[in-house]
């Protein structure tokens, strides 16, 4: 086997192998490597003893510290609720009016409401709550189901055309596609509806057509949009006399709406957000509108 030989330059042993006069050093592993190997091994033994570690069939070693990540998160959520309890208990107990009268409480509502809105509502209504095509602008005075905090909270709870059993239900029928109105009737009523918010439209349309449009409106639309076309918040019929439109207010958009109908949908948030969170959101939205008016 190997011949014991010490290399004169490094002082280490050689392996005793030789290839064409070249010998192989057998340098020992540095002590520091063994030191850290032992330290980390001891650390892991300590960790196995203290923390949850080894699977044992149907259970596992729980560790002396009794740490359970699920209990920790449940506790920390509970703890956070207790810390917030100073002001959330007042929001839960007091009426919308009393909360709005307290500027310090409303400051809390604005901060928390912004986060809740961003996590849950902003996807559809936009991070600035100004909505988009098909998704209502929440910063205007034009609310489909009522803009007071109680109504907003109820809309958030049950949703609109949602899967909630008490959902708010509303549908704009497809007057053209389902042949309830003829093509010229659709055209006339679209002109009439446009003239409600933009009097300039009336100048370009013959008075007879405008009258015909008004008659179509009275016969078909007033049930949901009201005799004065200012909408009905108990049926979710939009106000047609203001300058806010969910699906666009130009002739083409309104024609599309009258022809094919509309049925927007808002999910119910009852299973997802707590009553407290929904109340904060309702206050936040009511406040947001007042701020921007």
């Amino acid at each position, binding site marked *: 086997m190997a011949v014991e030989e010490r290399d004169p330059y490094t002082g280490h042993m050689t392996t005793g192998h030789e290839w064409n006069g070249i010998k192989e050093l057998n340098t020992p*592993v540095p002590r520091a490597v*063994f030191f850290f190997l032992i330290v980390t091994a001891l650390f892991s033994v300590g960790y196995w003893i203290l923390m949850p570690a080894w*699977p044992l*069939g*149907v*259970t596992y070693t729980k560790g002396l510290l009794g740490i359970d*990540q*699920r209990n*920790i*998160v*449940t506790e*920390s*959520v*509970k703890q*956070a*609720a207790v810390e917030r309890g100073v002001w959330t208990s007042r929001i839960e107990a007091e009426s919308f009016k009393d909360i709005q009268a307290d500027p310090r409480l409303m400051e809390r509502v604005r901060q928390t409401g912004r986060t809740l809105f961003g*996590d*849950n509502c*902003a*996807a*559809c209504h*936009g*991070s600035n709550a100004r909505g*988009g*095509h*098909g*998704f209502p602008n929440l910063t205007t005075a034009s609310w489909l189901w009522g803009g007071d905090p109680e109504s907003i909270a109820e809309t958030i709870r049950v949703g609109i055309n949602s*899967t909630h059993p008490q959902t708010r239900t509303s549908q704009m029928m497809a007057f053209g596609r389902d042949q309830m109105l003829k093509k010229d009737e659709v055209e006339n009523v679209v002109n009439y509806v446009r003239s409600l918010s933009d009097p300039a439209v009336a100048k370009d349309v013959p008075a007879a057509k405008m009258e015909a449009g008004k008659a179509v409106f009275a016969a078909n639309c007033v049930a949901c949009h009201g005799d004065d076309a200012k909408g009905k918040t108990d049926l979710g019929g939009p106000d047609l006399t203001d300058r806010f439109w969910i699906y666009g207010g130009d002739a083409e958009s309104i024609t599309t709406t009258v022809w094919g109908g509309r049925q*927007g*949908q*808002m*999910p119910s948030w009852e299973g*997802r957000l707590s009553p407290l969170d929904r109340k904060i959101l309702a206050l936040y939205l009511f406040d947001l509108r007042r701020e921007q008016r």
Partner: protein
Amino acid sequence: MFNLHYRLERKTIGFLLAIIGVASIGGAVEIIPLFTIHQTVEDAPNMRVYTPLEIAGRNIYIREGCYACHSQMIRTLRDEVERYGPYSLAVESKYDHPMLWGSKRTGPDLARMGNKYSDEWHVRHLNNPRDVVPESVMPHYSWLGRTELRSEDLGRHMVALRRVGVPYTDDMIANARSDAYGQAAPDTPFAEGVTKRYGAATNVRAFDGKPGNLTELDALVAYLQILGKLTDAAHKPVAAAGG
């Protein structure tokens, strides 16, 4: 002790056995607990299975690499639980083959996405995310709504899933194609079959807003709308804690 290795590497068979022994520790630690998985994972007796349309959507989700930016796993951390909802349980992925927990979030977690937003929002968002979320960096998937869904192999997907433990019945597998069509076509005889086989709580809607033609968009939206809705098991520990 330090000479053990020196001696061992001179004995070929012994060294080989030692390598196999050491290398199998890592495997054993991961594989052995699987033998008792039926006792260690929570019970969810009323858990429903994915419908054929939802399987198709799930396959599109995998094909398009959605998992690269979206996780489906809410961790046991306070900020995640407060933002997304109850933390994920193992049983919720019982029928996921493969699981799509993901490991990176460029977009938000999707584990509790089901029924959070409307179908129309999903349709608009997939067509062009910036139409509804101006600050989004997600790519658009506008071709999904123009591409007819391939459904002829759905039954075979279900056979494969049944082989790994998803309890599909022969009836479900035989009707895979018509159920995929029916789930996106309410008020047709096909839709009744879906409700009969998969339960009344199944979403039966024209997911892409166009009843009649079955597109990849229908499938993906149907899948997104069921995320986190197969069982309510995850909501129970939270309710028990008074949260």
